[in-house]
């Protein structure tokens, strides 16, 4: 039975939420970029055979069909096995990471997380670092200089930023003293988000002096983490692996049709998961701000039992936050130009790495000072 429930959760999350979200973030990407550039963007594809356009919301579906129907062409000069494997290796880790993300509190008593692991962040790092293989293999297997360069760039870029990504997370984990993402979210729901500790025990007037002082390292961690997520997902300004001005299309130059679509989707999936991770760690995940959760739960009478409508609200809240971040991702993409490669490496190794490292000590120092000796 738990398997069935897990299955339902997987299906619901992946096929009902993530994949449509991926598709529509592509649409959003195009619409938002159009808006930023004072254009119109895709607004035509609505309901087929009617004149109803629905702001072009049919576009992702049309795109998907197009990808499916295109000739699945494999160039003759590629290493077939890895060439076929690579797209899957990009898409799958992105989707796997969402297993540990709590996308809601509880619904009918069931925890709204597919796998409530106690080592959530570690799992995410473990899996996410696999996605580099997809890109490197794609670049190598394509047997083309552009792809190869893209792949090489990607591997070095991802490895570089994984370090700051990991290090920037350590302070957060220090603060919460917890590796279970669900618990982290609950904690934030009760005592204030990491970046907004203004209710419960986190509020300074309620004695949350430590949280107040920890805002500073938290913010640094947030910046480093968010930026590293950009780099990990290969999005502008860190999209050097594809970098069309130099490398045609980088690692996926030789790909077309559905295989290309998998890369495409993988990138957006990674972006969604990344957003989810940021939201979960820094902005309270599914929780409503200012102690509203506690208030609403108290209203129903049973503070331990979350009613189904509140569960839905939590899921909605989570998605809303994620969407805001996706929009942020898009916004940044259409604002900033691409980094030069040396700038990228400099930023990763000389600034973020040190910053994240120092941040750990600062956090630890503040924790020692405010919470007394390490318990």
């Amino acid at each position: 039975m738990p398997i069935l429930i897990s299955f339902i959760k997987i299906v619901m999350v992946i096929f009902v939420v993530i994949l449509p979200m991926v598709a529509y973030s592509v649409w959003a990407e195009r619409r938002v970029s159009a808006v930023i550039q004072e254009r119109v963007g895709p607004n035509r594809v609505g309901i087929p055979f009617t004149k109803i356009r629905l702001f072009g919301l049919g576009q992702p579906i049309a795109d998907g069909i197009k990808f499916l129907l295109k000739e699945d062409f494999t160039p003759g000069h590629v290493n077939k096995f890895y060439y076929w494997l690579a797209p899957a290796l990009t898409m799958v880790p992105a989707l796997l990471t969402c297993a540990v993300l709590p996308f809601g509190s509880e619904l009918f008593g069931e925890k709204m997380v597919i796998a409530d692991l106690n080592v959530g962040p570690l799992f995410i790092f473990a899996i996410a670092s696999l996605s580099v293989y997809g890109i490197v293999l794609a670049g190598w297997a394509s047997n083309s200089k552009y792809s190869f360069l893209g792949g090489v760039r990607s591997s070095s870029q991802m490895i570089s930023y994984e370090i700051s990504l990991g290090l920037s997370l350590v302070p957060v984990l220090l603060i919460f003293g917890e590796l279970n993402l669900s618990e982290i979210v609950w904690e934030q729901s009760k005592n204030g988000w990491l970046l907004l500790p203004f209710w419960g025990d986190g509020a300074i007037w309620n004695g949350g002096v430590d949280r107040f002082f920890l805002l500073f390292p938290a913010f640094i961690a947030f910046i480093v983490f968010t930026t590293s997520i950009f780099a990990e997902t290969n999005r502008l300004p860190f999209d050097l692996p594809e970098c069309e001005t130099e490398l045609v299309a980088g690692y996926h130059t030789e790909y077309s049709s559905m295989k290309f679509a998998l890369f495409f989707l993988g990138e957006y999936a990674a972006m969604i998961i990344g957003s989810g991770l940021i939201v979960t760690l820094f902005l309270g995940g599914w929780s409503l701000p200012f102690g509203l959760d506690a208030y609403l739960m108290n209203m129903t009478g049973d503070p331990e039992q979350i009613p189904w409508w509140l569960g839905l609200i939590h899921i909605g809240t989570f998605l809303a936050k994620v969407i805001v971040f996706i929009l942020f991702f898009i916004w940044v993409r259409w604002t900033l130009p691409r980094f030069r490669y040396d700038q990228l490496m400099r930023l990763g190794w000389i600034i973020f790495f040190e910053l994240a490292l120092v941040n750990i000590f600062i956090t630890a120092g503040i924790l020692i000072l405010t919470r007394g000796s390490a318990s």
Partner: protein
Amino acid sequence: MAVIVERPKLSILEKFYFPAIMKGLRITLGHAIRILRRKKKVTMQYPEEKWDNNLPEHYRGAPALVTDEHGRERCVSCQLCEFICPPRAITIIPEEIPPEDQWSKVEKRPREFEIDMIRCIYCGMCEEVCPEQAIFLRKDYAISGYTRDEMVHNKKKLYEIGGVREGLVNKWNTLK
């Protein structure tokens, strides 16, 4: 010789990038807000809205052949356009105008005149080089077809697009 460009010295604040990034984000957001409030529109809804009426005089669309007001085909197939055409889109096979033709004194005309619109780059060199004012770049720009053959405009099609052009120098009609 390589020219070494000195990189500008950045102030501390600039080195931090953050303010610049914020400034950029503000600009893009500004644009987004402006369009969302329907203040400005730079694109048009293409197939429904067209800019045909706003095309400049010198717009370079599809090249086409023209006849003069007396119905004479102006092209005498000198093949200069074929020669000058950078993508070699033009193919001409000349022929002699038969003596019974009204314009037999012109002597030469194209038997076949083909412009491969897949190749054409709309550069307008053919129009510029034409000594007979016979080929003009018209304002047609949406040239499409289902086959490659369809995209090769033959003589008939070219005259269809070109139509009659009046007021040009008609040296053949009077002086010769």
